[in-house]
């Protein structure tokens, strides 16, 4: 692995390294669709926060195709579509939640099932 030298820091930071992929994949979900988040509890990496597991939300936007981090953590580069999903406060927190608050969570396609 090449060592980052001081003179290359500015260029490396400016360029960055996107996890977005040019590859196109069919979209399984459309905006406005109700989806339920998988309730999985793997020992290794996932990007599903515990507080949305098993909960129902509405697809707010299609963010495009990215490297799927759960597989990437095992060294595999898999392309997957990412969505921003909206959850109401009452869906997530029950009577203690507020209907006038919502949380938007970026969730990969394989975390979601049609509801």
């Amino acid at each position, binding site marked *: 692995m090449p060592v980052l030298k001081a003179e290359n820091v500015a260029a490396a*930071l400016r360029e*960055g390294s996107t996890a977005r992929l040019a590859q196109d994949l069919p979209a399984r979900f459309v905006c406005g669709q109700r989806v339920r988040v998988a309730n999985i509890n793997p020992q290794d990496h996932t*990007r*599903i926060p515990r507080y949305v597991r098993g909960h129902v939300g509405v697809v707010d936007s299609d963010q495009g195709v990215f490297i799927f981090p759960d597989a990437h953590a095992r060294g595999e580069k898999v392309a997957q579509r990412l969505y921003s999903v909206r959850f109401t406060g009452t869906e997530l927190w029950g009577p203690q939640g507020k209907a006038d608050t919502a949380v938007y*969570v970026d969730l990969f396609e394989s975390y979601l099932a049609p509801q």
Partner: protein
Amino acid sequence: MFVYHAKLTGCRTEVLSKHKHNEPLPETVLRVKALESLLVEKGLVDPAALDELIDTYETRIGPRNGAKVVARAWVDPAYRDRLLSDASAAIAEFGFTGRQGEDMVVVENTPQVHNMVVCTLCSCYPWPVLGLPPVWYKSAPYRARVVAEPRAVLAEFGYTLADDVEIRVWDSTAEVRYLVLPMRPAGTQDLDEELLAELVTRDAMIGTGLPRSPRA
């Protein structure tokens, strides 16, 4: 942690002060030092590059970048439209690109909607426009509470919104990074872009604050 605690009042302070285990421990500092010397000794890390990285985010890349973006959006409706439809490209017009800002989304505050940003899984933050995150942004109490009771968290930062304003919290769980476009404060119609940028605080772009009022 200190900044966040300082903003809390009354019983909240007491409740959160029990969360001392979330503060960085001397043990962590020792571990970082040990790792750093090991990496340097093995030639895997160049200490001059580390100094350059720290200097970059201490003196060159910070929330003043984001403030310029926000001020431009306030004075130039076409720029605002570009910012909301393709934030990465619109921000790149200023040259603010790169690490942790590769895929940006800008969310706009309106009289009906107030946006707040968090990373509940760790500390994801849009570096090219805001620099490195403040300590409270990475603290467990902020991350846990802002998704459950954003209005209460905002109140502890000193801001109370009308009851009919919807609060939207954006959790940066994947690779998209969020920036809040706050509302332009009233009484600023005579200010130019440069003076407007001075009103834009870091917290206003995270959503835990609002821009300053002119002459406040």
